[in-house]
């Protein structure tokens, strides 16, 4: 049912759309008003305009590679359907199209008309990015036969993870491409914002595990994550890399603005996001209504 292609797709699409969403919200806000803190943040986040569509495009390659007949996938766009997969496919293509067009239009003539067109495209791309961030978690949570994922917390966790990994990518991109002194004020603001995202993710994750622990058969997945076969992946990858290291380095860097340890935290957040996708897909159990027993989900 699901496999590594799906885990990587969920990770890359979430991270790419998350990075673009943050970048576009900052950029669009700056067109309305320009407080110093927002301008500082933009020095870190502006890379998302390029990184977002590129990363989602890479994720799309993984999604196509997972299909039995990728060459037939274009049929999705010619079949009237309101299935989440159809809506998600349209959103991905529309997001990549609008974001790339916005970049092209922005790089052309600097006229008021072109500026308005670029803004309109960017607003559309931001809306589609939000849909890309949300729909994959909603899709996974839509199947009652997979009880561990069939709840409202899973889309919330995926959304927060997309924003956190997206911010991680932006921080690393800013570190690599910009002078440290230039981005230092923006880094501090981004780290505070990301700290809130990671904290919310930790709360949602704890709530999911607690709920799953108290429900059967969801408890099978919760136990596999907390104390079972996936405990290493969960505690080291999802909790350690995805929550503890980013929060610790963010706290450190907020007190010491010139420290570069946030790059380690950003890298850990990205690794944690990948571990989260793997952990959820590996822990989920699918059940058959005929036998009541577990049937294949991973593999």
């Amino acid at each position, binding site marked *: *049912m699901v496999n590594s292609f799906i885990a990587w797709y969920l990770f890359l699409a979430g991270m790419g759309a998350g990075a673009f969403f943050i970048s576009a919200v900052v950029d669009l806000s700056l067109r309305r008003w320009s407080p110093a803190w927002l301008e500082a943040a933009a020095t870190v986040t502006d890379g998302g305009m390029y990184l977002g569509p590129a990363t989602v495009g890479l994720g799309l390659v993984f999604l196509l590679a997972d299909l039995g*007949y990728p060459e037939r996938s274009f*049929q999705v766009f010619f*079949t009237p359907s309101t*299935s989440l997969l*159809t809506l998600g496919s349209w959103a991905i293509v529309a997001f990549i199209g609008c974001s790339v067009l916005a970049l092209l239009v922005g790089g052309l003539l600097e006229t008021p008309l072109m500026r308005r067109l670029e803004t309109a495209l960017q607003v559309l791309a931001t809306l589609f990015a939000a849909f890309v961030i949300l729909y994959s978690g909603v899709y996974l949570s839509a199947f*009652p036969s997979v009880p561990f994922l069939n709840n409202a917390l899973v889309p919330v966790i995926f959304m927060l993870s997309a924003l956190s990994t997206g911010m991680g990518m932006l921080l690393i991109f800013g570190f690599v491409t910009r002078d440290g002194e230039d981005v230092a004020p923006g880094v501090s603001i981004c780290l505070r914002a990301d700290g809130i995202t990671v904290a919310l993710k930790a709360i949602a994750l704890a709530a999911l595990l607690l709920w799953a622990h108290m429900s059967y058969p969801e408890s099978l997945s919760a136990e596999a994550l907390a104390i079972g076969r996936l405990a290493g992946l969960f505690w080291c990858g999802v909790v350690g890399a995805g929550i503890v290291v980013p929060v610790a380095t963010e706290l450190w860097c907020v007190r010491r603005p010139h420290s570069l340890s946030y790059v380690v935290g950003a890298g850990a957040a990205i690794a944690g996001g990948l571990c989260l996708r793997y952990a959820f897909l590996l822990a989920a159990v699918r059940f058959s*209504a*005929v036998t009541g027993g577990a049937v294949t989900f991973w593999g």
Partner: protein
Amino acid sequence: MAVQYGFFVDGTRCVKCFSCEVACQQWHGLKAGTWLRRTVFETVEGKFPSVTRRFTSLSCMHCEDPACVAVCPVGALSKRDEDGLVVVDSARCIGCRSCALGCPFDVPRYREDKTMDKCDGCLSLGRAPGEEPRCVLTCPTRALHFGPLSEMESLASAKGGARMEGETAPSVFVAHRLKPISES
């Protein structure tokens, strides 16, 4: 939709001979050891000597509200107007496995060519309206029945059976002995 067709699985007559499974495999050219369109499930209840073994031959439920059709992004799955059977167009299937995730009964299977496969009521074999699928024709104990759902309901009621439960409204009725043979 004109009339919803479905199955009645009379577990009081089934002897777990697997004729239905074999007939399905043979007629549809399914290789041994790959996948099945129809499976005989067995449940055992009680303790010796009061043991109840139940055999239930099931395939696609041809649900009235099929989850697989709803989630297919390319319309490869459809519900026929003529008889309500759920059929798959392999030439359209992209192999995304959404139908398998959506089906609560774990029915869809994936062929070597990575497209979905499931029971089509033997329509692909040219079964004419009024004819019965191969599994039904082959069953030596007449434990399998196929026809309009109202007729299946009548047959099931006579045996104390009931419709299979599920939000998708499966078009399958099942009857079983309520007690072990030694006690009935």
